Each structure stands twice: as C-alpha cells, then as structure tokens.
C-alpha cells in the first residue's frame, strides 16, 4: 500500500511538473533582457499555427536589428506568447504583455478574431498594434496599424482577376469561413460580381471543418467555375481535397499565405494548375530581401523553405522599426504616443519588402498594390504571374 501510494504521488508530481513545464514552454517568453520591450501573442498552437512562421520572421528581423546595433541607441526585448488562435486567450496574453511586461507596442500581431478581442483594451491603454496582419475593416481603430491590404481590396482584386481572365463563365463562388476573417471579402466580391453581371454563389463553412465535401459539392452543383477561398491558411488544403472527393476542377483563388510548400507538394497536380494566389509583399529572394534570408537561416534554420509569409512577418518589423526611428529621433524617449504619432506620418512609405503604406489619423485601412502568383511544382515555390497592380475601385 505504501509503495503504491509513493508511486502514485511520484507519478502525480511528475505529470503536474511536466504539464507545468510544457505550459511555460508553450507560453514561454522568447526573449532576453534589452532596453525596450515589445511583443505579441500568436497561434503557436491551435488551428492557425501555420501562421506562426510570420511571428518567427518578425522576431528574426528584431534580432537582426539588435545585432546591427539597434535603433537610435535602443535595442529590443521581443516577447512572444502563444494564444492558440483563441480570442479569449489573446486577450489574456495581451493583458499580460501590457500590464505585467509594460510593452511599448504590439508588433506583428496576426488575426482578425484576436484583434477584435483586444481592440477596446489596447485602445484604452493607448498601446499601438503595429504591423498587424488583418485586412478586416472591423479591426480599424486609433491604435491598430495593419500592413495587410484591406480584405475588401483583396476580395475585389481576386474577383476582378478571375472575371477579366474569363474564368467565371459558369459563375463565381466564394467558399468562406463563417466568421470575421472569411466574411470580410464578401461585400467587395458581391460588388465586383454585380458590376460585371456575374452569378455569385456564397458557401460558408465552420473554422476547422475537416471535411468540406458538402460545401464544395454545393459549388459544383451550382455550376460555379471559379472559387475564391476566404479563411485561414489551413482551410485551403481541405477545400482542395474536398474538390477531389467530388471530381470538381474549378479555378481557385486564395491569398498566398495558403501556399505552404509542405502542403502544396502533396496536392494533386490537376488542381494546382488551376490555382491563383494574391500577395502584397516581396517574395523571399527578391532583390533587397537578403537580410530576411540570412536572419531566418541564423535564427530559425529548421524553418524552411522560404514562403511569402516570411516577408509578411519581416515587413511588420520594418514598419515598427521605421516608426521607432522617427519617434526617437533627436534623443526623444520612446513612448506609445510617440510611436502612434510617428505612424501617422507614414505617407506612401516603402522599403524592399512592402510599398505604399499610408496611415492617416482617420483610417489605417490600406489599399496596397497586389500581384497574382501561381505555384510552380518543379521549384516548389510561388511564381509571379502579374506585376504589382492596384485593386479595382469599389462603387459606393
């Protein structure tokens, strides 16, 4: 009996200790003490964990800046927390970053749902959310500074391309996540379809739906010949595999963060040839992106191959660094308000990774130029099909 009790006690302590260790590791602070604290929470685990690579790229950029001596005499302590892509966890993690860690700014934060959960809180605290990856109009506030083009402009861009290229003969479909992420493109796509007299079929799905055969079968039955997929990246492959289930071969369009090489390499070739992707930052390997490649190789050697999401994460960091540089010019101390004021001076700001960023005091929604890419199975990378072009203007 004594032996059993001892073993039980030992086992319980072991489990609790391992669990606690894991929690600390998963939610762990990923930074060393420096002068200025910045941070973000993101989906290291959960349904959108594929987006974590953008956080790693942001972090690689921050570490690269520190390695090069920092900005105006300051270096950065970058704190990353896991929010599991759960808005309530995002709020808790952000409170920790702001109330306990006293971060100057959130940098490279991703996700519409999480941003909506923290929007009022960070506004009340005056914490700038810089380089945010969300195009939803709903996240717009005095302290949110996205680098993604507005979802409306992305949807309009994708719909116009499909219509102009003649892919929508049987109608245009949108297979969308039934939340703020997926719905954000709908009004713009509806507007473009109406302008061009194209039949539109909208089919929603729930986040994390493993089998989308029913939804894709609905599109097929409606005779839709071109489909925009609107949702987080992991919803993309399940949509394509559902099309395989019902022998359906439309032209697909999605945002390029869905084009994850480890996923694309396993999708059927007869589906890949009909896929198009829109994007708004440079691709890794483009002229001027050597810093990104070398920093990722140094800090995240296991994260390969390069994807456009790397550039997106890096671009978030470059926007923050530029704002920080402007805010601390002439020896001024870094404050949240100074960062916000500096960001409001951005007028057509461009660098090697992103171009055309303009924030005004009234709106931070961006209408960036975008390109169209297609997957090249031979090199297992995304190739440009068009140069960067402005999205169509939406009617009133």
């Amino acid at each position, binding site marked *: 009996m004594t032996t059993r009790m001892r073993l039980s006690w030992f086992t319980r302590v072991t489990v609790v200790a391992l669990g606690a260790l894991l929690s600390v590791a998963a939610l762990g602070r990923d930074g060393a003490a420096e002068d200025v604290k910045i941070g973000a929470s993101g989906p290291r685990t959960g349904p959108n*964990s594929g987006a974590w690579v953008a956080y790693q790229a942001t972090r690689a950029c921050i570490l690269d800046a520190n390695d090069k001596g920092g900005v105006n005499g300051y270096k950065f302590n970058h704190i990353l927390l896991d929010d599991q892509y759960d808005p309530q966890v995002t709020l808790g993690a952000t409170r920790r970053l702001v109330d306990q860690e006293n971060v100057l700014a959130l940098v490279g934060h991703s996700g519409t749902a999480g941003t909506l959960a923290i929007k009022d809180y960070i506004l009340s605290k005056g914490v700038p959310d810089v380089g945010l990856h969300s195009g939803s109009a709903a996240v717009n506030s005095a302290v949110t500074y996205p680098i993604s083009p507005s979802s409306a402009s992305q949807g309009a861009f994708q719909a116009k391309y499909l219509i102009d290229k003649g892919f929508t003969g049987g109608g245009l479909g949108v297979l969308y996540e039934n939340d703020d992420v997926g719905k954000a493109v709908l009004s713009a796509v509806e507007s473009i379809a109406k302008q061009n007299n194209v039949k539109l079929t909208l089919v929603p799905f729930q986040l994390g*739906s493993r*089998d989308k055969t*029913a939804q894709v079968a609905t599109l097929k039955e409606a005779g839709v010949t071109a489909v925009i997929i609107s949702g987080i990246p992991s919803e993309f492959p399940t949509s394509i595999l559902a099309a395989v289930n019902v022998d359906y071969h439309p032209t697909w369009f999605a945002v390029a963060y869905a084009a994850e090489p480890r996923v694309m390499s396993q999708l059927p070739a007869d589906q890949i040839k009909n896929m198009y992707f829109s994007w708004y930052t440079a691709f890794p390997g483009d002229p001027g992106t050597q810093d990104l490649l070398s920093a990722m190789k140094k800090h995240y050697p296991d994260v390969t191959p390069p994807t456009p999401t790397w550039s997106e994460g890096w671009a978030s960091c470059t926007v923050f660094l530029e704002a920080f540089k402007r805010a601390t010019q002439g020896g001024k101390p870094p404050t949240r308000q100074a960062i916000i004021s500096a960001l409001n001076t951005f007028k057509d700001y461009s660098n090697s990774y992103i171009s055309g960023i303009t924030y005004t005091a009234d709106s931070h929604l961006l209408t960036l130029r975008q390109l169209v890419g297609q997957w090249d199975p031979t090199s297992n990378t995304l190739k440009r099909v068009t140069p960067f072009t402005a999205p169509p203007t939406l009617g009133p």
Partner: protein
Amino acid sequence: MINLVVAGLVSGSIYALMAVGLIVVYRASRVMNFAHGTFVGFAAFLALSLHTSSHLPLWAAGGIAIVATVALALLTEGVFVYPLRHASRLELLAVTAGVSLVLSGGMLQLFGTQDRLFPRFAPGTAFRLANSAIPLQNVTTILATLAVLGIIAALFYLTRIGVAMRAASENAQLSMLVGISPKAVSLTSWGVAGAMAAAAAILVAPDVPLTADTFSNLMIQSFAALVLGGFTSLLGAVVGGYLLGVGLNLFSFFVKSDIPSTFILCVVLGVLMIRPEGLFGRKESLRL
C-alpha cells in the same frame, strides 16, 4: 450524392477508428484516454517524417510508426495509468490530459508549427458510379479501415487474450479469481489502442493538414460517435462513427453548411436524452 456518402464514410472511418481505440482502453481501464488524439498525431508525424526526411517507403515508415505508437501507449500505461489504477476516474482523466499536453508540446518542438500534408497513397480514380468518380484513396481508406476493425473484432472474440479482456471489462474481481491478470489486460488494451491510433493516423492523415493538435480536435467527433453507438459496445463505436460521418455530410449539404459542431452537439444531446446508453450500449445496473 454518392460522393457525399463516400466522403462521409471516410470521415466515419476516422471517427470509428479513434472511437474504437478509446473504447478498448475505457473497457479495460475505465479511463477515458484524452491522450488518444495525440497518439494519432504522434504516429502521423513520425510516419511523415520518416517518409519525407529519411526517405523510407510509406509502408516502412507506417510500420515503424505503429511500433513506436504501441510503445508510447504501453509507456503511458506503465508509468502513469496502472500505478494510479485505484484513483478516481476524474484523476485518471486528468492524467491522460496531462500526457496529451506533454506529448503535444514535444511534437511542437520536434516538428514545428508549419502545416503539412501527408502523401496520398492511392491517387487517381477507383471507378465511376452513376456519373460520380469515386477516388481510389477514399475506397482504399474505407476498405482498409474495415479490415483493421475486422482484425480487432477477431482479436476480441477469437483469441484467449481477447476473451480475457472482455471478461475483465465485465467483472474485474471475478476475472482475477479465474487467473486473468489485470495488469496484462490493461497493458494489452493500451497496446491495441496504440496500434489503432497509428492505423487511424496512416489511413486518415492524407485528408487533413497536420499540426501538433490536428487529431486532438477530432476527439470531439470520436466522443460523439461513442455516445451515439454506446460506450460499452465496439460495434456501437463503429456504427456511431459511420453514422456521424455520413450524417454530418448530408446535413451540411441539404440543411446548413456552417454549423457542423451544432449538428454534433444536437446528436449527442438527443441520444443522451432518448437513449443514454447509445444505440448498441447496455444499461449499466447498480446492484445494492
């Protein structure tokens, strides 16, 4: 319509395989193993890594994954579950949840956060039926699942250890009196569940983007399949899995496409209210 049913049967295969893995352990140890989904994920990631990084053929990678997952399940039983066999069910459940967390964290460190896709082992079309092309992958998955389930049924009903496992699940005290070792029964059950987890991983992984917690999420559907079929019945777990898979697809196509979780919850609630023991389960009586 045919494609919808076939795709539903593929989903049902996942739920059935996972549900049977759960029920085998539950019947032997009275533990609802929250780590089962993580076992499936472990097997899928291991097989994928051995195939893509070490360039092993898929069958060899799958074989190693099965052996490793059985070992992992046995380790879990030996280190965490058996020593706590006299603890309450809630404590045991918490222990398996802890094991699941530790394993998920380990997989995150080992395999990273990027989405991956398992190669399809049977690309192409199997046959056409009423103007519908049935993918060979789907047919293979369904048939292979039925074969695995057949082997499990044979193990339980045609072998001595299977009979011992059933006897122990019926009455542990009596079975000990006739010489059945509870330790052997518990270990065997966990080993079988580990093999089931690996089989589910290999058969199902080509249909889902793999992340560290992909299969933990599928536990909800597997639990629903168990409730539908009955917690005490292997046949019930299988039928429950297939009914849920096909029903979910037909509901999404004919009724509403974006509320599968609501559908599952309604099924669970409906069964619990009308027939709490499930379609094939038995009412448990308490002798005073």
